[in-house]
């Protein structure tokens, strides 16, 4: 049996639900009960996107770059800050109150200000996406590093292990699953950040497409851009799920390991 048929078997119910939803949606629109400019039929949306495929691809690529840039920047800033918070009391005392205050500001509200500072180009979008994604990364990474079991650290400490070795061989691997789950939240947030920044001021990107098309009541294009955005979010999310399988297979197997454990305890 091929993997695709296996996948289909395991996901019969969700696939059926989605297909059914689209069929109902299409039928409702075809009967003319709903005005097409309020709710266009799925087929109309597909046609609208296909007709503008080159333009839509371009805007998709812009948003993709912004999300990827913002997400990467958030990791590059967030992980080192988390390490600093874990290791230095002083760093924790300095950064924690600042982080807390900053955290309570709705990041979306910062977008106009950031655009004012960084201009209307791509860098401001990347920055808004980064700021939005930053917190779950810092918090999860810190939680992971701090939660390293004391006995694991003592074990290394009793052997006079170098701090760097302890970090690299104990703390980081321990924190990795936490970091990855922070990344899952962060990547979704950075899509939101990028789109919000595009709303505030931009002439490219899918956020711009939505704003522009809705002002001319071109609803099929609005829906089309939305579909592309959710596909983009899913692409990022599942890339991280893949990364998780690659980086911490021991953690992924945690739930699946019980059968093996029973086999192990019998010997």
């Amino acid at each position, binding site marked *: 049996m091929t993997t695709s048929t296996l996948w289909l078997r395991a996901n019969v119910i969700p696939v059926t639900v989605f297909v059914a939803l689209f069929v109902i949606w299409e039928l409702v629109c075809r009967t003319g009960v709903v005005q097409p400019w309020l709710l266009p039929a799925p087929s109309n949306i597909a046609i609208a996107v296909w007709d503008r495929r080159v333009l839509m691809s371009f805007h998709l690529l812009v948003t993709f770059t912004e999300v990827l840039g913002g997400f990467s920047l958030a990791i590059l800033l967030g992980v080192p800050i988390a390490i600093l918070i874990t290791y230095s009391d002083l760093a924790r005392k300095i950064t924690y109150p600042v982080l807390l205050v900053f955290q309570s500001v709705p990041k979306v509200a910062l977008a106009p200000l950031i655009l004012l500072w960084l201009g209307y180009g791509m860098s401001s979008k990347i920055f808004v996406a980064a700021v939005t994604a930053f917190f779950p990364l810092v918090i999860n990474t810190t939680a992971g590093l701090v939660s390293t079991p004391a006995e694991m650290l003592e074990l290394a400490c009793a052997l*006079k292990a170098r701090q760097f070795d302890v970090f690299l*061989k104990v703390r980081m691997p321990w924190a990795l699953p936490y970091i990855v789950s922070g990344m899952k939240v962060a990547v979704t947030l950075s899509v939101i950040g990028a789109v919000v920044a595009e709303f505030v001021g931009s002439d490219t990107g899918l956020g711009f497409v939505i704003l522009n098309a809705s002002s001319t009541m071109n609803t099929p294009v609005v829906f089309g851009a939305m579909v592309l955005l959710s596909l983009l979010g899913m692409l990022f999310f599942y890339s991280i799920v893949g990364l998780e399988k690659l980086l911490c297979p021991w953690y992924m197997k945690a739930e699946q*390991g019980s059968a093996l454990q029973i086999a192990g305890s019998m010997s």
Partner: protein
Amino acid sequence: MRDLQEESPVPLITFNGVTVQFRGRHGMVVTALEQVDLAINEKEFVSIVGPSGCGKSTLLRLIACLIRPTAGDVHIKGRPLREPSSRIGIMFQQPVLLPWRSVLDNVLFPVELIHQPRAAFETTARELIQTVGLGGFDRAMPRELSGGMQQRVAICRALVYDPPVLLMDEPFAALDALTRDELGIELMRVTAQRDKTVVFVTHSITESILLSDRVVVMSARPGRIIDEIPIRLARPRSLDLVSTPEFGCYASQIRSRIAAAHGRLTTAGPELT
């Protein structure tokens, strides 16, 4: 087989008037150990028994140099203990294996930390894994092993770099009774073969008699040593020993010492078995 009459004249580890105090919550000073004098000889198997919170683990942490005494000092081979060293192997109640490493890689973990070439220890590691009955599990991940098997891996990890001293903090307390006895016998065999000095903290009086050359009895907080009882039972020992009158004699002796320290005539609390 070890001969009790031939103890080396200079003890390997000595505690001289060691007191350990912690600053607890609300700034209260908690005395974990008070005026402890103890000498542990080379190749001796010493068990430390006592009620919960009597500072048994603190004693081990002192030898591992994970904490410092508030007063007094600890010597190893006549030299004051200043920093942790690879002469000490350590085991906890939990196996504390690194879940992302295979059995073999877990056993070799200390070797990496003390910056020794891994290749030089790989044979030793495989032999140890074989010795504790885990042959063929080299590539297995900790998750795939039962609690007892994981603790066996921890024994290998503590022995792989051949430290002369083993510190064990209730290593079998989390295991079921059968596995516990089995591992105790196993540990005795492995450590006797390799001439190890073992300091073994336990809640179990039976376990302490079965395994040790000497049982150190401690009082509840602040922890003090109230008695040291040499166990003159021939080695190698087996589980059958537990039902002998001599064994029962030792057990009641230890139990009464603990009870006396508690100021009551009844037998010790339920946690001491």
